[in-house]
């Protein structure tokens, strides 16, 4: 089952897919553009992201082998839903998207073994984890000014039940910018796969329902500019649309 959270006519609703767009829980059927799409998980907890978790992307950024997964955290200020806008500040030279499989934890997980790990997953969605490389510094990488900016984690459109994704390691993903394919990958190429990530993280921290793991991005990141439409797609999960805007849209 796929579920979204949308705002429509003064309230927040749960919605499911419909041939004409989406259907609110109260029965109203609406077109995709009629609603405001929110991140599909109401009470998100910790947002854990993986850096350099596809061998090709690590190579693209000139990184060698790693001793353990390179995980970092993002704050809820970064979250936006499907069809949201992300601001590119004036004067930066390299801002890029990152299409990622997002894993939503369904129940408390502590010291979980990889063989059992998928039982702790509520579902999956698509994340677009933006970064501005101009701001990269060498202290606590990736420093928050690069990735923890308002609106820099697009999430959605749907939360897809874990039962509908039997193998999170068998999903093709791709990004298009203005309709042109710029990024392609497959989750079988994850350096640390979903069960192993849950085992790794839960070995030192308790994961709880609503925590999200963004599993990293393959190669193919390019600079995006105001007006660009960035679409991240994952097989079976849907397509997450985001538009880059300039400072003007934010009154800056």
């Amino acid at each position, binding site marked *: 089952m796929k579920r979204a959270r949308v705002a429509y006519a003064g309230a927040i609703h749960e919605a499911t897919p419909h041939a004409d767009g989406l259907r609110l829980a109260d029965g109203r059927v609406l077109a995709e553009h009629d609603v405001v799409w929110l991140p599909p998980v109401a009470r998100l*907890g910790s947002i854990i992201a993986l850096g350099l978790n596809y061998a090709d992307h690590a190579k693209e950024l000139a990184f060698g082998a790693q001793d353990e997964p390179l995980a970092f955290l993002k*704050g809820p200020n970064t979250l936006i839903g499907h069809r949201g806008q992300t601001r590119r500040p004036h004067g930066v030279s390299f801002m890029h998207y990152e299409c990622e499989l997002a894993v939503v934890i369904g129940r408390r997980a502590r010291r979980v073994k990889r063989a059992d790990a998928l039982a702790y997953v509520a579902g999956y969605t698509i994340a677009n984890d933006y970064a501005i490389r101009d701001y990269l510094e*060498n202290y606590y990488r990736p420093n928050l*000014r690069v990735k923890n*900016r308002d609106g820099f984690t697009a999430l959605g459109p749907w939360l897809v039940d874990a039962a509908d994704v039997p193998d999170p390691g068998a999903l093709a993903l791709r990004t298009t910018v203005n309709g042109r394919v710029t990024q392609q990958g497959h989750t079988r190429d994850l350096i640390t796969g979903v069960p192993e990530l849950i085992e790794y993280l839960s070995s030192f*921290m308790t*994961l709880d329902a609503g925590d999200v793991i963004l599993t990293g991005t393959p190669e193919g990141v390019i600079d995006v500019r105001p007006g660009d439409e960035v679409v991240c797609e994952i097989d079976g999960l849907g397509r997450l649309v985001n538009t880059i805007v300039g400072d003007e849209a934010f009154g800056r």
Partner: protein
Amino acid sequence: MLMNNPRTGADAARFEAPALGTVYGTLLNFKGALAALGDTVHQPPLKAPPQAPVLYIKPRNTIATDGADIVVPLGVDALEVGATLALVIGRTACRVSAANALDFVAGYAVANDVSVPHRPYYRPSMRFKCRDGFCPISTVVARERVANPDDLTIRVEIDGIEVQRGNTSQLIRSVARLLADVTEFMTLSPGDVLMVGVPEAAPLARAGQRVSLLIEGVGRLDNRLVAEGAAP
């Protein structure tokens, strides 16, 4: 967790602290802490002194209270005690100016940003700072009760003996300046916590020891370290 602090007196009891949101930490914001890195800030992998505030997130599993035990993981000799002043945000803070930044602060608390000792600072593993219970935070005292957050003595005692002393007058970015620089690119919401930095020479503590953090006019935070797997 954020009950009123009985140590701060009766009139503080009228203060309703917001529920905690996201907890952000700041690294290398004390002059002495940055100076202690010496020339390494110019060498690989750091290559240059920090420009923007050096920030990180303490996830929700780390948040703990006064009196909670802090678990020293198996195979770790001692934990680093990160004594810091914590700002608790009271109003949505986006692009605030330093001139009125303090208006966005609901109150102050004492926080212990516990770490497994680690170097370098380039890309530390989450294992070092994100373990369960690695961020005890005291009760919150209302902003009005702290005359000047940029002149507060921070002290650490281990088993009653003072092992560290610092003062927020030594911050590279003052409390207001830090809020302005952080909210330039990320919005802080009511209940979010911004820890302003840890003074140089953060002490180490071992299982069995009692760690007390004291900030004058703000409060104190007492936690005991216990070995992983030890009987409660």
